[in-house]
């Protein structure tokens, strides 16, 4: 990439940009100006740091799991240690990595930029969300230090309430606290989308990333409270002996499962919907094409968010719920797959007649489409009751949700991280390293998790630290793949850190992309835009004529910014 550093300054010539500065410039407050930041871009960076820390804690637990499973005899860890490790992995990765992953980082950073707003609707609440998530995470880590938690991330009673001798209550309280942080984020984003769109930014001119963040926020607002109350009842049992789910005293442990999955299935859409939004931004930019079927993509996002609330029972096909319920949930689970399929087809069709280049974000995004397709299609297996009976509670399920959440959401996160890295940091990253990491991640991921589909249909149960020897070859393959995958995740940590200090300065719009976030400088000034932008065109208005890979100042944008 050529180093064309001429900043696109929409509002004023160079001097004005210098005067405006960037959100990264010190205001003389030292550390406290970051820890008390209310600027959405700084909060996004706080989240990014926290999430990276949790990712490596959860990743360390995953490493221990894969080490343990190399041998069928479980010599490396004791059974209790193994139970603590996979519980830590699940809780940290679900609530402190995947749920905030894209909404709290890119959502925070980009939502105001993409709709032309100076900040989110409630900047202080935004900071409070970060602290709530942090405090929740510290509670969970404290529970782990003080003896650990061994229930699995699902906290099923009566094991979690009456039988486990571990720090369930502390961990559960941590998750509840973080849950309120999630709700606050959701409230903030919905209010921002409703109230702070720039002039001309009509609902159907919003980029799909904004749509997905909007839908995700609604899911956060409506699903998370159900998790909070459910886990609060578990905590009430552990702390005060209130036996709401006690089957021996007339309660019903299945009630917990219904409530838990009423949250936890939509939670999957909290993770994957924003990922879909990121991928749409990236694919349109590098194919230089309008997204195929914009309106349909919007409806698909909303349909997934809404139908996603009605499918929780497919986690409970063998739990003892009625056959009629099984059939209804099976039906709805097939239906919810349709909008996801539409999205895959539309991304593919967006490539048709494009002018495609393959920078790292595009490689990650195409990897996402591939892995999400496999993850989504294996969802059909789990929606079919007889097959679900065979594979639920086995490594098939483990492989399926890792394809969706890690192959899907995490690949999309890396696509977005590289795509918006110049905007966030004002620096370019080393392209060839990034491409290599993207390819490595795709193969390492398949190498790790594809064998688990086979293990699952063979019947290997999850959460086993010892297993029959005939499963060993597949487990060794999976652990070997995990080495490749770990390398692929560590590489960006290295070269992106390097790029923070030594990367070439980035122009305002290095990809020649559409979207309001590229109208302002890189990194953006404190209040994003020197003048409020006015939107006059539909999203993804790419043309063959501006296919040049060279970044360039586009006078047309400058004129608009003045408008």
């Amino acid at each position: 990439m050529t180093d064309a550093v001429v900043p696109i300054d929409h509002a004023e010539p160079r001097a004005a940009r210098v005067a405006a500065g960037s959100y990264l410039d010190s205001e003389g407050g030292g550390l406290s100006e970051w820890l008390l930041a209310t600027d959405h871009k700084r909060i996004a960076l706080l989240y990014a740091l926290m999430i990276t820390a949790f990712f490596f804690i959860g990743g360390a637990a995953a490493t221990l799991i894969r080490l343990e499973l190399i041998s069928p005899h479980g010599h490396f860890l004791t059974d209790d240690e193994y139970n603590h490790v996979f519980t830590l992995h699940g809780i940290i990765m679900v609530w402190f990595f995947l749920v905030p992953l894209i909404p709290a980082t890119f959502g925070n950073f980009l939502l105001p930029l993409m709709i032309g707003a100076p900040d989110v609707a409630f900047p202080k609440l935004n900071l409070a969300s970060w602290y709530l998530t942090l405090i929740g995470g510290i509670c969970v880590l404290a529970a782990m230090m003080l003896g650990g938690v061994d229930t699995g991330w699902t906290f099923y009673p009566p094991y979690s309430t009456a039988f486990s001798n571990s720090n369930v209550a502390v961990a559960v309280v941590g998750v509840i606290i973080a849950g309120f942080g999630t709700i606050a984020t959701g409230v903030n984003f919905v209010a921002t989308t409703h109230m702070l769109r720039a002039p001309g930014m009509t609902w159907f001119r919003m980029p799909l990333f904004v749509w997905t963040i909007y839908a995700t926020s609604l899911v956060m607002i409506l699903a998370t409270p159900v998790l909070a109350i459910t886990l609060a009842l578990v905590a009430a049992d552990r702390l005060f002996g209130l036996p709401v789910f006690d089957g021996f005293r007339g309660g019903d442990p299945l009630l917990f499962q219904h409530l838990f999955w009423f949250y936890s299935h939509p939670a999957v859409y909290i993770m994957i919907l924003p990922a879909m939004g990121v991928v749409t931004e990236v694919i349109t930019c590098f194919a230089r094409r309008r997204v195929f079927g914009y309106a349909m993509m919007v409806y698909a996002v909303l349909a997934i968010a809404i139908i996603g609330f009605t499918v929780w029972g497919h986690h409970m096909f063998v739990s003892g719920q009625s056959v009629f319920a099984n059939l209804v949930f099976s039906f709805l689970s097939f239906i919810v797959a349709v909008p996801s399929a539409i999205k895959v087809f539309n991304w593919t069709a967006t490539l048709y007649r494009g002018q495609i280049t393959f920078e790292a974000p595009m490689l990650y995004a195409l990897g996402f489409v591939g892995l999400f397709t496999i993850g989504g299609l294996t969802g059909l297996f789990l929606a079919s009751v007889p097959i679900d009976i065979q594979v639920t509670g086995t490594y098939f399920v483990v492989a399926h949700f890792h394809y969706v959440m890690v192959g899907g959401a995490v690949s999309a996160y890396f696509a977005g991280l590289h795509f918006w890295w110049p905007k966030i940091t004002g620096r370019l990253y080393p392209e060839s390293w990034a491409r290599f990491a993207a390819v490595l991640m795709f193969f390492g991921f398949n190498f790790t998790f594809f064998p688990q589909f086979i293990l699952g249909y063979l019947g290997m149960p999850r959460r086993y630290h010892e297993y029959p020897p005939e499963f060993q070859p597949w487990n060794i393959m999976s652990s070997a793949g995990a080495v490749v995958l770990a390398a692929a995740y560590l590489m960006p940590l290295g070269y992106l850190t390097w790029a923070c200090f030594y990367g070439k300065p980035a122009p305002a719009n290095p990809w020649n992309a559409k979207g309001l976030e590229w109208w302002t400088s890189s990194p953006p000034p404190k209040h994003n835009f020197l003048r409020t932008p006015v939107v006059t065109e539909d999203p993804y208005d790419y043309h063959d004529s501006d296919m040049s890979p060279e970044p360039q100042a586009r006078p047309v944008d400058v004129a608009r910014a003045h408008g």
Partner: protein
Amino acid sequence: MADAAVAPDPLREPWSDLSRQREAATLGMWLFLMSEMLFFGALFMAFSFSRALDPAAFAEAARHAEIAYGAANTAVLVTSSLTITIAVRAADVERGRLAARLLAATAFLGVAFLIIKGFEYRDDLRHHLVPGHDFALGQNATQIFWAFYWAMTGIHAIHLTVGVALVLRLFWLVRRGRISLASPQLEVTSLYWHLVDAFWIVLFPVLYVAVRA
């Protein structure tokens, strides 16, 4: 009012227009209330489901709930909703002193509710109505009812305590003139208060009245 003159500008970043800011604050609060409705809604759903498993035990258990305390508390809380509504109206017409007094009355009624609740809890404890080995009504589904009783009223009391703290803070700010009467905080706080009240209005018949019929 003299105080209002020195009150800080209610306009906050990122807003450039106070009416938009108020609209956003109200929208935000309604979104939070939607979330809270699912929070309590899930709790009520769980209660109804458990009750359907053993209605007889629930009816038996509910007979031991102290309806007099419950009824008194209902009256207290409904009155407090009235006082906070008038407080917001008073602020709208720039009558800061009246608003402050009504906010104080609201907080007082909230505390009164908690005190009455405390007496009720004391009686429940004396009658061994906490689930466990020395539970008064036997090792059966009556314990589930009482588990819900403590969980629901406890969670409601936590919400109310938060509400009292918010109202007291507002009272202090309004009295000292540290807040403009045009600030969206008044309306937003009252919305929250009404929600906490509304949950009690549902809780009271569910726990004290409906199941004993």
